């Protein structure tokens, strides 16, 4: 297990670096250079007012892509930190759980883009005169789009750790630290990884939206693809928009191939299952690394180091279990106090929000926003329905053909990751040219980026549909509507609900950028809560932003509770096929 330095005299063929090593070495050095390059730009002073930090030269695009990607990964790091602390606390402490989990639930439903204006102001204040403030604001925006579902997934894994494995760790008297690294985290890896991928997909959307933002008088432009795009839109340069789209494609493809696929392939071993999986995830990058010699022993060495760190314990203290029934009444008193504190804080927060909003706004504003939110809801519902009608048959067709599914599913996943807001300007041009009704045609943009969640989930569902049921259906000659109604639709329903739920959440968020779009000086707005928030942000009207975001969050929460959650429960209870 321990790495031993090769003995000097004969450099045997076993230790000499091979061809793969040289290629890998070059790649790694390139990554180091890129990281250094990106971090140098972050702490630069703010450019003087009026001067733009971004130009439309194609040559700069790789650098901008690098900066954008760096932001993404910094935010991801922050999300992991948040996940490990917040979710662990929620899973380990009953009282913390009572507060933390509902908060997380609400945070998941809050439209992140709506709060961009606040975070920008806060962070600019923290780092006056430096780009760092704006960077932090952008990173924070991405973080808020990534962290919640990751934390949820980790929390759920922590709560469902297999009891026999837990007994082993307790029997061997592992410390909390050791248990965290040997049992809880490994068990959570598959779920966490999946959610990380989903988060990254969502994150590209927000990084594009948060790099160039105007809040009242302050305009922020961080070097990156998002601001490049914003500038291109400002100057009506369709070629530059095309270049940004292309760069985005390359970046997403690269991170998928070089980062996520290898990790997913490697993480197959963390799945708790009885037998080896039928299909194994493959990654050419991982295979490539495994063929190198030096790189491989380097990774083994870090693996061993990690094990040492994970096994670390200060000193052996035999744990004692408390005798079962003690201080039940005391615990109940603490509970009561705890509830009282939570209640007071909640009342105080509501009062504070009311005071802030009511300085400028009246009840009629509330009615107006509710009406607008209703409009947006109609949009989301109608478009989800249309996307469902359109995509479900196609996805089922694809999913039932393994060959086609093999290529189409990653493609759909890729499209879900692609920030749809990059192509919004093209829609504006079309709407202006053909003089279309923005209330109808801008709606299409809401679903544009999120429909792919439905597609790849339904493909996965159809692909996983058991063969014996398919055969039974064809023996009984189930055809047409009967086949759809009794065979395939119930079969894919749990997958569909998962996809549609994600798409629905994403669509609400997207409405903030989709209902109010610009092309140079032309602005097109639809009526809806998204446009309301976007306009308020542009004007720096904080009470309106708060009101808009609060109303939208309330709609999302109610929508989820009354619609998606019952559907989800139904799918879990009745239609799960295993």
């Amino acid at each position, binding site marked *: *297990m*321990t790495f031993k330095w090769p003995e000097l005299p004969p450099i045997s063929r076993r230790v000499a670096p091979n061809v793969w090593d040289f290629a890998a070495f070059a790649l790694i050095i390139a990554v180091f250079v890129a990281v250094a390059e990106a971090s140098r730009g972050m702490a630069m002073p703010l450019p003087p007012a009026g001067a733009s930090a971004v130009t439309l030269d194609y040559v700069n695009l790789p650098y901008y892509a690098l900066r954008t990607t760096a932001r993404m990964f910094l935010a991801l790091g922050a999300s992991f930190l948040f996940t490990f602390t917040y979710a662990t606390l929620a899973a380990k402490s009953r009282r913390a759980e009572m507060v933390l989990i509902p908060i997380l639930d609400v945070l998941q439903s809050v439209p992140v883009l709506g709060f961009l204006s606040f975070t920008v102001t806060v962070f600019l204040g923290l780092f006056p005169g430096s780009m760092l403030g704006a960077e932090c604001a952008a990173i924070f925006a991405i973080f808020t789009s990534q962290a919640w579902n990751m934390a949820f997934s980790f929390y759920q894994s922590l709560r469902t750790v*297999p009891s*026999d*494995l837990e*007994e*082993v*760790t*307790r*029997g*061997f*008297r*592992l410390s909390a630290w*050791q248990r965290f690294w*040997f*049992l809880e985290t*490994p068990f959570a*890896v598959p779920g966490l990884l999946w959610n990380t991928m989903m988060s990254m997909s969502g994150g590209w959307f927000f990084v594009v939206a948060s790099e160039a933002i105007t809040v009242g008088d302050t305009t922020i432009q961080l070097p990156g693809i998002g601001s490049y795009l914003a500038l291109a839109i400002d100057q009506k340069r369709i070629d530059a928009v095309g270049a940004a789209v292309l760069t985005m494609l390359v970046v997403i493809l690269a991170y998928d191939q070089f980062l996520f696929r290898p990790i997913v392939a490697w993480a197959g*071993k*963390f*799945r*708790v*299952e*009885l*037998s*080896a999986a039928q299909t194994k995830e493959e990654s050419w990058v991982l295979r490539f690394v495994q063929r190198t010699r030096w790189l491989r022993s380097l990774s083994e060495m870090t693996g061993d180091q990690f*094990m*040492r760190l994970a*096994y670390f*314990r200060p000193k*052996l203290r*035999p*744990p*004692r*279990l*408390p*005798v*079962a*029934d003690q201080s*039940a009444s005391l615990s109940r008193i603490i509970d009561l106090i705890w509830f009282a504190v939570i209640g007071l804080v909640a009342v105080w927060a509501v009062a504070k929000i009311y005071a802030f909003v009511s300085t400028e706004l009246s009840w009629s504003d509330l009615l107006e926003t509710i009406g607008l939110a209703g409009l947006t809801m109609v949009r989301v519902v109608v478009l989800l329905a249309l996307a469902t009608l359109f995509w479900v048959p196609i996805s089922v067709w694809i999913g039932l053909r393994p060959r086609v599914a093999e290529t189409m599913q990653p493609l759909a996943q890729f499209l879900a990751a692609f920030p749809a807001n990059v192509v919004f300007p093209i829609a504006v041009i079309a709407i202006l040219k053909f003089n279309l009704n923005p209330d109808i045609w801008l709606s299409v943009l809401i679903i544009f980026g999120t429909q792919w969640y439905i597609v790849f989930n339904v493909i996965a569902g159809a692909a996983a549909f058991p063969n014996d049921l398919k055969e039974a259906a064809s023996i009984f000659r189930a055809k047409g509507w009967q086949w759809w109604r009794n065979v395939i639709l119930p079969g894919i329903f749990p997958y569909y609900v998962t996809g549609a739920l994600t798409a629905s959440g994403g669509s609400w968020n997207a409405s903030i950028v989709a209902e109010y779009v610009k092309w140079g000086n032309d602005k097109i707005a639809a009526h809806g809560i998204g446009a309301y928030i976007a306009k308020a942000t542009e004007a720096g009207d904080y009470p309106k932003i708060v009101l808009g975001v609060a109303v939208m969050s309330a709609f999302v929460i109610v929508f989820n509770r009354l619609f998606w959650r019952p559907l989800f429960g139904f799918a879990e209870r009745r239609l799960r096929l295993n």
Partner: protein
Amino acid sequence: MLDALTEPLLQIRHVSQRYRKGSGEEGVSILDDMNLTLYEGEIVGLLGRSGCGKSSLLRIVSGLMRPSSGEVTFQGQPVEGPVGGIAMVFQSFALFPWLSVLENVEFGLRAMSVPEDLAHRRALSAIDLIGLDGFETAYPKELSGGMRQRVGFARALVVNPSLLLMDEPFSALDVLTAETLRTDLLDLWCEGRMPIKSILMVTHNIEEAVLMCDRILVLSSNPGRIAAEIKVPLLHPRNRLDPEFRQLVDLIYARMTQRADSKTREGNFPGLGLGMILPRVSTNTLAGLLEALIGPPFNGAADLPHLAEDLQLEIDELFPAAETLQLLRFAEIEAGDIRVTPAGRKFAEGDVDTRKRLFGDHLLAYLPLAARIRRVLDERPTHQAPADRFRQELEDHMSDKAAERTLNSVINWSRYGELFAFDDTAQVFSLENPQ
């Protein structure tokens, strides 16, 4: 041997365990006043059917659980949490899928800060001892069940425990693999090649207990009590066909099916009347068992060990089915023998409708809970009643889990007997059957 007898390795004194209900009040008892002394050099088996608290007792001994009352001492020290000299082997193997065989075996040592190279060496010798050479770098999911359980043994042995606890270690394996593992373990034990001084094992397999143990404690269920202690004087290696071996097996069968307190014909289920805890048994199993019993070679009466062997049933499957037949007066059990009653014969020979009618009639007559649900439904003008009402009533007598299982069994049996209908989504009983 006599020296060892003077100093017990493990003592369990007056240990009781009760469930606690959600509201905090004391619930149903699982273990009741257990006493057990374990000496060095012996293998002791805890034999009982599911629900007798044998696994709970094992967890109390290992320090994973604290008893509601009573105490456990290991090598003279009270057990108040997991202790160093005790290791456990699990029914489900409980291996970490993300660690290789070697890493799994090293796990316990390295967690306790044993130096890396020492841990490595000890793990390799444990792997060697248990016959896992060549599998060091494999991951658990690449291994067969038998090999996985060997890893489980190696992981337990590598920490040099004095006492090895085994929680039905062979019951997840197929017959042949289980037998190989048993003999391998017994060989190591008899040759003294393992560091352990004593083994305490839980099982529901009577033959396994007689094959491996020096002493067998038969537990009764709900609450778990020691019903009998049986010494096995046979020398290793034991022969299953040895008449003495067979005699012991027969004796234990008789002990496990005899009702301790009274001569009532209430079946052998714990609790009385409405509070009776019912097992999960399918009506197909009941019908199949009756058919097998009236056919040759049994012709209406059988000796339970033979029946178990003939039908390839574990006692955890056979006993509940046989006792349900007894409860419904389709069969009688006495001294390890089962005999079909005239009603049982009528059932086995009848067609589907006869069977259903007979089954329904017997449910109403002999199963108080079924009769009660039916009466409530008859009395109500709507002929409907929520399941929760009966669930809560049951929970006064038993744990939540047992109540759920009991209710499920009554629902399944009554559906077969067409006594009433049950809507699972709404959780409502009714008299209407779907048209």
